[in-house]
């Protein structure tokens, strides 16, 4: 059964049609990579998947339930199960690294448990012992990794990654790819948004190509590389992004 599904989703802001008739399924345990050039609507899709945005038309299902029909508490449960790595990191800049990573744990763990989880997660992303630092003291790559630790701290069943490797050096990127794969081995379903083909091929079970708010192709990476669609081929050849 699909753990996340978008059915005929449109998303518009004013007159701008950001997404048009997008239908996507994410199967439990798989890694779906959404590939697309800048501005194609990738971040918007992720935000629809955990209910940060509501579709203008169509339906979004998470865990088998229509997100627009959930109560506030049910939506919170869905979000606890759905980790989100923001493209910008979106760290709370008035809180320490430790408080950032432990933020979602405030209501589900006591102080000591939370402290242990935070230390574990920071170790996992290679930033052990940085609990007392402030986000402003971190480099861009470190921030992204703290944000990743924060998203993983609630042990979600689903992870949504918005450009996890963009702007990072190859070594850090490789580390993050390893982390995504490790999560997958633990049975975590992942949706990875990127415009970097190299990394997409390393993690993807399936790829969906998004161009100008439309899904123009879906399938295994091999299937996609063999796609006759000229738009897809142009994108894969580096014509965009």
């Amino acid at each position, binding site marked *: 059964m699909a753990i996340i599904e978008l059915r005929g989703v449109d998303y518009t802001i004013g007159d701008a049609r950001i997404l048009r008739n997008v239908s996507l399924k994410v199967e439990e345990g798989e890694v779906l990579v959404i590939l697309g050039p800048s501005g194609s609507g990738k971040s918007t899709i992720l935000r629809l998947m955990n209910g*940060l945005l509501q579709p203008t038309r169509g339906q979004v299902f998470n865990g088998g339930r229509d997100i627009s029909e959930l109560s506030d508490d049910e939506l919170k449960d869905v979000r606890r199960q759905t980790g*989100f790595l923001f493209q910008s990191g*979106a*760290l709370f800049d008035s809180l320490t690294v430790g408080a950032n990573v432990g933020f*979602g744990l405030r209501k589900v763990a006591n102080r000591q448990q939370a402290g242990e989880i935070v230390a574990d997660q920071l170790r996992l992303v290679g930033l052990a012992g940085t609990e007392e630092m402030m986000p402003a003291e971190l480099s861009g790559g470190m921030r992204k990794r703290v944000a990743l630790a*924060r998203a993983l701290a609630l042990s979600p069943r689903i992870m949504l990654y918005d450009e996890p490797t963009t702007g990072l050096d190859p070594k850090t990127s490789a580390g993050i790819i390893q982390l995504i794969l490790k999560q997958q081995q633990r049975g975590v379903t992942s949706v990875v948004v990127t415009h970097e083909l190299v990394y997409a091929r390393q993690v993807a079970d399936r790829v969906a190509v998004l161009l100008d708010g439309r899904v123009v192709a879906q399938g295994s990476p091999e299937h996609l590389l063999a796609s006759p669609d000229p738009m897809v081929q142009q994108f894969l050849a580096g014509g965009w992004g």
Partner: protein
Amino acid sequence: MALERVGRQVVLLTQIVGHILGGGVDRGVTLTQMVNLGFNSIPIVLIVAGFAGMVFALHTTREFARFGATALAGQVLGIAMVRELSPVLTGIVMAARGGSAIAAEVGAMQVTEQVDAMRALAVDPVEYLVVPRFVSCTLMTPLLTIFANVLGLLGGCFVAACQVGVSGRAFLESVNYFLSVGDLVAGILKALIFGGIVALIGCSRGFMTEGGAAGVGESTTGSVVSAIITIFAVNYFLSTVIFHDSVVAW
């Protein structure tokens, strides 16, 4: 646009009340905000209220002295200060210092996706960001108003005694004689409402912020302007209702 804003503020207010009644107030964050918004505003409130009392007494005491009615000088300042000047001036200080800080902070968090990050972590931004600020403002504005009352009256007394030559003691006695507990309570109640207005407008403007640093600036200015206008308008209606049949006993 303005109507939409008011609508959102009403929705936000009901959410806040819901959280407070449900016991969902984060003590730690609230305490921090009480220090930031309230405690740190004490000096400016004292200065503003002190000078307001002084300038008010400068005019009234002199006029009353001409008619030999110096005993009334304290009374007039007392009523003006406690009923109107202290709560309104404190409200304005809170709007300028606290409301702007709230709108800027929440606005910056909004445009840098920190508010969304909070939602994504299943934490309600109303509970975590708004309720503590609302509670601190509604508690600290009345407290600051009490300080403003004291400094305003002392300032007036100082001017009456040193510049006009009315005995300071007679001045304070006339304040004491004519001022009722009801006046004090009414002033404090108004201050509580002004505090709520400041926090509500600051937070809702913060959440509505769009478009980066410029947007944050707009929200900040906008929140101060609307809070001050709202305070003056609401004050007029509250005073009409509260003091509708109050005649000062001569």
